[in-house]
């Protein structure tokens, strides 16, 4: 199978090889370095004269100068079709479960399996008819994938208008079986199967227009939905030092966010965390559908010890799969943990290429790549008038927890909400450790803006009083200021903080958030008749206790209502409202 398009290795340096090629190469095309009976996947990342620099997606141990490299003339692509949901892939869309069956405990290099199972049969129902004129992304038919109507579409790579000349009868087909045939104006005839391929680094744009994201995405995390909301089709980032709870927060979002599809890109992070997701999700129930959470999820898992070049590819793989489901009019959430590791992968390659380094040795083009990634989010109007969306949430792991670094800064420029996690809050075990005074969001809250403003005012006043007390002491603080401080602490404890390890408190529905917040707000607005600070402190401690207990009670029980009465009575003890 030796065609002209091959080359010979000239140098090997870590995961980069330089190849002397015979005829031509394409930037970003995929090639395979042949090593004994294995072929290692590589990508062309620079061409100079008759030599091309390739990043190798595998360990390069054993490669020799003069070794054969075969070029494919294809960009890095993913397979799109039914069967993606519930899968766990590596950064190059290798199915990890099937790999484990074949290679055992370890990931052997050079083993690539088809991402979509070739033998599964899907029940195809056509919607297009012979004679229909379609453009890329239009529905030809559908199969049922779990609970979703999975569209079989005119492949995204088809340019112009195509006329359907044949549709196969409704029956069971495998992904590679032909289900329709189409002809374009030039008379080209193409067969269409249920699977198509798409290059990961190019956004899928088969839609009419991008719309402004306005609807709040309910994450069931109180501090997010109420104070720093994220819109369906919006973007947000969660930077924070290690140990501040980025991953726990991402887990909570992946479990409780009210969305159709969740794609998790575990990019350069701990394997253990992914294992938690992939062992837990099949057993967790999606409250909306009653099915397992896994049924709505795809996990792209390129952990920190897996080859760094495929870490770079993994976020693109993830976003491309997300775009595919968006094309079916679904709302999708992409969680990338962590974009810093992706940026570091870029830095490593940039270093090997001996490019002139930018700040902290990150490449100069880092910011435009980050922007390009987040811009693939959005709410879109599809060709048939329905809408689909991608919400992207990226966690950022800034060196030393200092947000003044290139990845955080580059991300803040392009996202719509900033949920900054703080060491100070996590040390005080105030979780989620999203800093209520430093974070921001451009999106609409589920609560009335004036109420949120009032609550934030209380928090910032409370913070001022706290700072002041550090200087003048408690005795020098006026009782009114002191009560304001207690109120802000109260708000923090009973509403902003949320126990993700408690069955009930882990997720608060929109309805409950509105109900509970009204209660909190009425307490914040009440006047309390204290003259003694110790008494006030004790009273608020008790009030907090009752409220926290209340948070742990399901709102569908009688106990929830009886506890509310206890709370109301407690409030009346000292408030003249």
């Amino acid at each position: 199978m030796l065609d002209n398009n091959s080359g010979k290795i000239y140098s090997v340096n870590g995961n980069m090889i330089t190849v002397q090629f015979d005829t031509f190469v394409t930037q970003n095309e995929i090639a395979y370095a042949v090593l004994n009976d294995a072929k290692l996947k590589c990508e062309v990342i620079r061409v100079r004269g008759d030599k091309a620099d390739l990043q190798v997606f595998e360990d390069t141990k054993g490669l020799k100068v003069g070794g054969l490299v075969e070029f494919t003339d294809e960009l890095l692509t993913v397979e799109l079709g039914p069967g993606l949901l519930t899968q766990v892939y590596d950064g190059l869309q290798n199915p990890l479960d099937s790999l484990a069956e074949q290679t055992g405990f370890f990931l052997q290099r050079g083993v690539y399996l088809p991402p979509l199972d070739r033998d599964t049969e899907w029940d195809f129902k056509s919607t297009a008819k012979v004679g229909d004129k379609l453009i890329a992304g239009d529905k030809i038919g559908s199969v049922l994938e779990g609970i979703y109507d999975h569209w079989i579409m005119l492949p995204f790579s088809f340019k112009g208008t195509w006329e359907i000349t044949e549709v196969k009868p409704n029956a069971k087909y495998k992904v590679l079986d032909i289900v329709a045939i189409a002809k374009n104006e030039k008379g080209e005839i193409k067969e269409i199967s249920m699977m198509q391929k798409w290059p990961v680094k190019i956004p899928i744009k088969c839609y009419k227009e991008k719309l402004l994201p306005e609807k709040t995405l309910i994450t069931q995390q109180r501090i997010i939905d109420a104070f720093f909301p994220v819109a369906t089709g919006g973007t947000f980032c969660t930077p924070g030092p290690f140990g501040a709870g980025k991953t726990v927060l991402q887990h909570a979002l992946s479990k409780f966010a009210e969305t159709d599809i969740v794609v998790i890109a575990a990019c350069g992070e701990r394997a253990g965390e992914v294992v938690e997701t992939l062992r837990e999700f099949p057993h967790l129930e999606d409250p909306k559908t009653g099915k397992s959470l896994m049924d709505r999820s795809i996990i792209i898992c390129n952990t920190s010890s897996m080859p760094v070049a495929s870490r770079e590819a993994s976020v693109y793989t993830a976003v491309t799969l997300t775009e595919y489901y968006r094309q079916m009019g679904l709302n999708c959430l992409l969680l990338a943990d962590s974009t810093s590791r992706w940026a570091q992968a870029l830095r490593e390659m940039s270093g090997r290429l001996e490019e002139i380094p930018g700040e902290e040795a990150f490449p100069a083009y880092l910011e435009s790549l980050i922007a390009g990634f987040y811009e693939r989010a959005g709410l879109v109007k599809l060709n048939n008038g329905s809408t689909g969306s991608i919400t992207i949430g990226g966690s950022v792991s800034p060196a030393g927890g200092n947000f003044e670094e290139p990845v955080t800064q580059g991300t803040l420029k392009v996202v719509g909400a900033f949920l900054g996690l703080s060491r100070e809050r996590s040390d005080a075990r105030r979780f989620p450790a999203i800093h209520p005074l430093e974070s921001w969001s451009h999106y609409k809250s589920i609560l009335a803006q004036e109420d949120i403003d009032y609550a934030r005012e209380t928090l910032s006043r409370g913070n001022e009083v706290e700072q002041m007390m550090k200087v003048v002491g408690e005795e020098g603080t006026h009782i009114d200021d002191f009560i304001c401080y207690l109120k802000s602490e109260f708000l923090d404890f009973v509403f902003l903080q949320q126990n993700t390890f408690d069955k009930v408190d882990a997720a608060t529905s929109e309805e409950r958030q509105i109900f509970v917040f009204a209660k909190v707000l009425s307490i914040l607005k009440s006047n309390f008749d204290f003259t003694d600070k110790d008494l006030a402190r004790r009273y608020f401690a008790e009030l907090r206790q009752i409220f926290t207990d209340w948070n742990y009670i399901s709102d569908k029980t009688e106990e929830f209502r009886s506890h509310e009465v206890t709370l109301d009575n407690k409030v009346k003890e000292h408030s003249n409202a």
Partner: protein
Amino acid sequence: MRKVYHKIIHIAGNVITVEADNIGYGDLAEVTSRQGVSLAQVIRLEGKKVFVQVFAGARGISTNDEVRFIGEPMKVSSSENLLGRVFTGGGLPRDSKPAINDDLIEIAGPSVNPAKRIIPKNMIRTGIPMIDIFNTLVESQKLPIFSIAGEPYNEVLARIAMQAEVDVIVLGGMGLKYDDYLKFKNTLDDEGALSHTVMFVHTASDPIVECLLVPDMALAVAENYAIKGKKVLVLLTDMTNYADAMKEIAITMEQIPSNRGYPGDLYSQLAARYEKAVDFDGAGSITILAVTTMPGDDVTHPVPDNTGYITEGQFYLKNGRIEPFGSLSRLKQQVNDDTRSDHRDIMNTMIRMYSEYLETKEKQSMGFQLSNWDKKLIKYGAQFEDTMMNLSVNIPLEKALDLGWQILADCFDKSETGIKTDLLNEYWPK
């Protein structure tokens, strides 16, 4: 017949360059010089040039010395006879017993398929309340002790190793002081643990390249035992020396440094080692306890910083105590709900109170009048530090939890604790 090369065209740091053909990336070579024979590894290929890193260092190598390529990468023995033995980073015996060269396995092998991992669920009991209650150590966890020079980190490491119920202990020593090496050896010997221990030790005076090999050798051996179903505990001390060795090599190779001279792939390199910690589906496990010394007690220094992002938490050892802030076990949630129903609440409440105590202490030192609440906190803080944080305390988890309730009851009213009412009813000392 393997070809011998006599023309060394370049020597810089510990890296020498020869011209040779048909050499595999990562292959081993033997360099014979007046200093003796040293192993070396191919770290870069460029046309005819082969860059070789000499384990024993390039000092004393002359341009016409002999380089012979072995044609395969670095390997280590996986024989059962390793137990009780001590080796150098290069795999040679450090004790006066014969070398072991049977059942060789590759080091720095591929990464474990995440699909073959399981969620860790076994607590490792250490008898130290700051660990057992507040930051529970879990089988298959990777956890460093962040510390500064002069702290008893190696003692803590040894103590945990002795208490933990594991089948095999593998010690990887990097840049270890000779005294520390002897201390480790003696502790293991005294406790009768030497017979199930393998040691790879690079002391501060050994060639720097051997330091780089230590974690890979130790982890390859550990992995081999784990696959055979053994519970393995790997101790790595000190990973900062390892990172510094990497820095030294990177700089001599003229790589563009990213942060304070460390190479841009520091994160990936550290992760590749730490990620060897695993609980296999259907086999044994590897738990990694490491030491990372923080230059200048600075947690934002690239080594502790990158480590913190990789490991599943850290123990922060300062002033002879494991600090509650900064210390973290990310896996504690996997185990601390099956220990005892009050475990999590005691953990959270006591830490929260301690954090309030520290604020109050600050207030006190500034001379402010203390409220009744402040006085309670002061009392609490002192008790907490004396009992819970004291490293010489050695009690099982259940006793430590009871002690926690005792301290709370001694200092506060029920309602001030913020603990759920049903737990208060069950555990509050009468």
